């Protein structure tokens, strides 16, 4: 690729996005906030897939895996948000520290 961009540019960008996503997952107590962090992590993984596909000679396998990741992320978001709404109906809150009925 012209312009002096290398594979490491994209890997480091992906690493930064991953770190913010992991930080979001670790610190949020709002269940929807945690799901947002998971979406950030999945996006950073996709950046890695496409970067390796591009710098590995333009094979399409990486792009196809990225599409599968996007598909699973959509399914995960649907199920996750449905669970969150069900929790909200039961507990009137989605703070993950407050929903501790199963805690022994």
């Amino acid at each position, binding site marked *: 690729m012209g312009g002096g961009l290398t594979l490491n540019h994209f890997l480091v960008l992906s690493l930064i996005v991953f770190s913010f996503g992991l930080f979001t997952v670790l610190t*949020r107590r709002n269940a929807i906030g945690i799901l*947002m962090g998971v979406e*950030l992590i999945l996006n950073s993984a996709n950046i890695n897939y496409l970067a390796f596909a591009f710098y590995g000679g333009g094979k399409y396998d990486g792009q196809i895996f990225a599409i599968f990741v*996007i598909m699973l992320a959509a399914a995960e978001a649907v199920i996750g948000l449905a669970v969150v709404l069900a929790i909200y109906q039961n507990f009137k809150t989605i703070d993950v520290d407050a929903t501790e009925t199963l805690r022994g």
Partner: protein
Amino acid sequence: MLAQIIFYALAALTVGSAAFVAFSRNIVYSTFALLGAFMGVVGIYILLAADFVAMVQLLVYVGGILVLTIFAVMLTAGIGDVTVSNRAVGTGSAIFTVGIAALVMLYAILRTQWHQVAGFTPAPTTYAIGNAFLGDYVLPFEVASLVLLAALIGAIVISRHEATE
């Protein structure tokens, strides 16, 4: 040089939005910042010559997941109660953990000699991806439709269960 300028602009948009998602005290602002992160990632995909994946990302993430997330936020969080709606705990230990993980990965990225193939000219990808989905990847492609069907039914069952009782 132009590619570098575009890359750093897109990276700034993505990283800035992701930081806003991670640090904002207001869950609604976090959700809308997610839009910026997704759009920046779409630009990165186009920069990596993945036009079809970029459009899929635009349709599924921005058009689907983000709208769904905004709906869920509006339905659940006490919007007026900003400080409670997006509480963060354990910030110090989280920064420590994430910092250690990031340093290890950065070391791995910079130390590894990645296998790279030079001299690749970008071409439209939709045709080849469609052929691959109905050729080498036909089994995962069909299983994916089952996964989506299960997710659809599961979401309906989970979200309707308590409402009917």
